[in-house]
């Protein structure tokens, strides 16, 4: 196999769940904080509430993030945080991208 096709294959193997732009932004944010709430993610991603909910649910179903519904005073608070599995998957994804771009 020539190096070019090997390089292409490495990108084909990228985690598609993370490769979707909105989800990669969500994971990017969660990778540098302990947790972030729904409102913050809504502002940062620019998604609608419905879309954000769908993306968060997919990430939660994959075990990449943990969603905790709680209250701060009388206000409901939806907290999202990265799981260890999610952290590893995201680091792996970033490394794959970096390798592909540098080659």
């Amino acid at each position, binding site marked *: 196999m020539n190096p070019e096709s090997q390089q292409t294959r490495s990108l084909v193997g990228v985690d598609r769940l993370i490769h979707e732009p909105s989800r*990669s*932004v969500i994971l990017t944010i969660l990778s540098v*904080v*302990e947790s*972030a709430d729904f*409102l*913050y*993610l809504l502002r940062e991603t620019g998604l609608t509430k419905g879309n954000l909910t769908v993306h968060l649910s997919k990430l939660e179903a994959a075990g990449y993030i943990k969603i905790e519904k709680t209250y701060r005073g009388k206000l409901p608070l939806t907290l999202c945080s990265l799981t260890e599995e999610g952290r590893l998957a995201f680091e792996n994804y*970033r490394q794959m991208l970096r390798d592909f771009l540098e080659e």
Partner: protein
Amino acid sequence: MDKDINTSQVRAVQYWFADGLVELGFSAICMLLAVYFFILQILPSSLGGFAILFLLVFIAAYGIRKLMLIYRERNTYPRTGFVEPHKGHQDRRLFIVAVAFTILLLGGMLFTLLRGTQTIAWMPVIGGILFAFIFSLTGYRAKLVRYYFLAGFCLVLGVLLAFMGLGDLWGAALLSFFTGLVLLSFGIITRATYLHQPIVSLEQADEP
């Protein structure tokens, strides 16, 4: 893509500083320090008094931090969202260097204070270096230019005050006061900018 990832990460880290409360809180602590050094200047010097006052300032600084967090919870988070910064220290080496540097400088400060009269008052210089170090570290971690400016300001002011011959305590008091003043103005500007940005409310309709 990787650049975009870095930008998003930096924005999340900078969120802690977006509402100006860090500057306002730090400004209040600097003003407290200015009062502390001023009291030390007018009171007869004793190690016991020095320690008690230091403890009081420390407790007050802790109280200011608590107040800042409570206010942030009531004002910032309902407006723009809640973000909890990483617990613990991500960069352990940087943390160890910061702690060692702070202990060394505080030790130096105490030493110069207890040594009595000297030709050059070193305390403002040491204070200036300490402030500059804290602000540079903050600027480096959050990638905020205004903190590098603050670091430069403290360093220059500390050296200037030392060579003005005002003495250790007056020099330290003035350094704390002027640093507090600059922080206060930075805090007000940042806060005003933050309060003028549009709010995304969870109560708004989902689709236009």
